[in-house]
């Protein structure tokens, strides 16, 4: 019998302790052990980007990481964007620009965008494409997502 591993990590500023089999993927741990179900699973082989979260500030695929690899890490998920009722500028931008339809890929997109806008406050379309090229949206055809990023960047610039 394979022993469980204790895992301690911080998600959206909150400390969590849990245990998991070594083989458990990080996304399954977040969703089913910690109940943070806003991060979605689309392909489980790292291609679609639906499960993207931030780990120590960097966008990563949580479906191709083991929970054990994230022991001690500082994570951020979609649940960490809004502060109570106040939506994050990225979320506001997605609503204004229609950056989503079914909304299943959206949390992953927003996490990649969050990373981009931390370092690049006024991204060019090329930089946006580069940051989002590894994520699949089957509904929108990306135009409104591109606009959402421009809009979010403007909002964030205005607020600082």
């Amino acid at each position, binding site marked *: 019998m394979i022993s469980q591993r204790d895992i301690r990590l911080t998600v959206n500023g909150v400390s969590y302790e849990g245990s998991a089999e070594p083989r458990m993927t990080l996304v399954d741990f977040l969703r089913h052990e910690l109940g943070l*179900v806003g991060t*979605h*699973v*689309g392909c489980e082989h790292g291609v679609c980007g639906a499960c993207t979260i931030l780990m120590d500030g960097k966008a990563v695929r949580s479906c191709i990481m083991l929970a054990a690899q994230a022991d001690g890490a500082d994570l951020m998920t979609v649940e960490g964007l809004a502060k109570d009722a106040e939506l994050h500028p990225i979320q506001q931008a997605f609503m204004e620009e229609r950056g989503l339809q*079914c909304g299943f890929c959206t949390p992953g997109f927003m996490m990649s965008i969050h990373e981009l806008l931390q370092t690049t406050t006024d991204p060019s379309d090329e930089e946006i494409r580069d940051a989002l090229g590894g994520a699949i949206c089957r509904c929108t055809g990306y135009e409104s997502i591109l606009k959402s990023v421009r809009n979010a960047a403007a909002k964030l610039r205005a607020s600082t």
Partner: protein
Amino acid sequence: MGGFEFPKSIDDLPVTNPKWVGRPVKRVEDPQLITGRAEFIDNVELPGMLHCAILHSPHPHARIKSIDMSRAAAMPGVVTTLTGEDAERWTRKSYTTPEGWGTYVLATDKVRFVGEPVAAVAATSRYIAEDALELIDVEYELLDPIVDAFAAAQPDSPKVFDEHENNIMYQRKFTWGEVDEAFAQAGHTYTEKFRWHRVGANPLETFGVISEWDLVEDTLTCRGSFQTPSYMAMGRAATFRLPSNKVRFIGQPHGGSFGGKGGGRGTDITAMLSRKAGGRPVKWIEDRIEYLTAGGSQAWDRHYEVSIAVKNDGTVTALRVKLLDDLGATAEGFGATGAVKPMASFTGCYAIPAAEYDLTLVATNKLPASPYRGMGPPPHNFVLEQMMDIAARDLGIDPAEIRRRNFIPPDQFPYIIPSGNEYDSGEYEAALDKVLEMSGYEELRNEQEEARAQGRLIGVGVVSTIEPGVFDWNAYTVIGTRGIGIPEGVNVSIDTMGKITARVGFALEGQGQYTVVTQLLADYFCVELEDVRVVMADNLSAPPNFGPGGSRLGVAITGAVLGAAQRLTEKLVKVAAKLFEVQPEDVELLDGELRVKSVPESKISVRNVVGIMLNRSDMLPPDVDPSPEATFAWTAPGRVEPDEQGRVKSYLTAANACHLVMVEVDPDTGMVEILKYYIADDCGTRLNPANVDGMIQGALAQGVGAALLEEYVYDENAQPLTASFMDYLLPTIHEVPMPEKASLVTPSPFTPLGAKGAGESAIHTTPAAIMCAINDALLPLKVRATEVPASPNRVWKLIQDAQQQ
């Protein structure tokens, strides 16, 4: 319908200044989605829930000699297991169109495709359930795989179903008008063969379900990402021989469907596992490999031979289409309807008087075909539009011009096409002109000339298509579906505080229909969007409904909402009439108030009338009960059975789009780059223009995928080679163009507010347009791309062959 007069346009709504309908209002669906709180099925955890994993056949065609579940069943954590024996005992074979080509949800005698469910387990976690699959011992006796559609159609082919004479699921030739004569008299005839490979929906969320079988009450409750919960429920009742009111289906918000959510097998398997596990809920989340190889993922595996008859001036006089469609192993899941739907727009935007459809559906050992956005016409439009270009080239007519010469003129609507469907309205030439103007067509052609002179392969495609909207079952009667009309219902109520609630039978899927319902009710009763709430009702609480599909829901739900609002208003009017001591005919609803028509000061708000209804029985008229709510189910008017040649008025609306695309083909690599893209789209009244725009852009992306990237590949032994997203290539933000778009509005005379079906959208047009552009680019080399997708390998090979000649 029921003596109802639906408002013909937004201006006819009972509000002086409509604030919501027709505007790109923000979506009411979004807050829960952008915060990650929408309750997708895999977010749902129920007490005592088990997890299912399914063992899929590794062989395309084999007899099952034995299945031994004992090692799996004995594994710690496994609660119960399931095989075909259980399915045989408890269920019926799947309902199919055409009839009689179904199987049990778990293989019994033999397996017919790689991925076919063979056994299943329910365990305390998905991890353990998958471990247990490795302990199932199945002995197979391999049979010859049937993979080539033409070979499968031969009488000597091995058979997918032993009980059938051969693999032909359906064969029929439809003739509409004097086709032979037209070809005999035509100045020019052109014939070409085309191949469209399998593509499919691939919503980002796969199918998922939780089933719970209450053994004491013998009821089944299923939660899941169902596109059509009430139809799924009826199907399950039939499958399990359960009274239909003992089957409850709850649709969860889902991550897209595009027709490809499937789910019948997974639902039945989890239901039976729950039954065997003493009623514990059992969850199954299809994984991506399962979706790609065994799910509702694959559509349109087509071999075409097409001819057109054309006069010297470019007028097309007849169209002949011969189609061999490879439906895969069974006819479950409505995959076959995709081959019939082209009859709803067979001759496209053109006034072609005669046509013939020679249709053969064949079974092979591939995954059973499923519906996919567009439901079949996209490949048909691709072949028709290539033929238009072929004729144009030969006759020296510009591709835009040959289309213009053949368009159905605006004064001929409503217009009945040879295959029987009726188009409601259209301004095809205006849409074409719009696109030509936006793109600076002449200038593009000059650019192309210059590029050609430098040896570059640049091409322009310009294509006009129809999007049949508001599907009806009668479109598919010829292939065995039953019924005429599809009710879409809504219940609308207003409470004492004046707040409005609408109950619908479909869940969030992405199109924004909850927003449309909200807009309609907010304008109808002149309130803010926040005053309206739309909720999903399960199949036992919702009015008759179908949900999204066949570009129908926007129109259908508009009819339902307006009908219910009108019915509710009639009650309010009676109460107000009593109050003002006038006749009901003298009272009207305007701007959220019930007014006496001739006495403007005599008015009372809707909210106060509702208050009276609920709280002052003494003031109620005798024929009004205290229930400020109403239900209405809308169905398309004037639908009947098809005639002996399959002709029928099926789809109620005909939206139109004209696309112009410019591409460059790299002769050294076969890569196609989209340089420019323009769209003029006419889907009648736009209830929410931003919704429509989203449909166009999203469907455009899917069209780019179909034309250039996406393809389900099988090897010569019927093994699927596209089992991951590394192999089945979905377009990303790098591949999808951001076109310039324009809208035209030619309202439908047949629908409430004049809206047309618009959900399938650009997928009808984009593949055809891109392929036309590629062929225009290849013109100097005198080769033609007839195979979709135009992968770099295929395009390069064509160029290579041309250069070697």
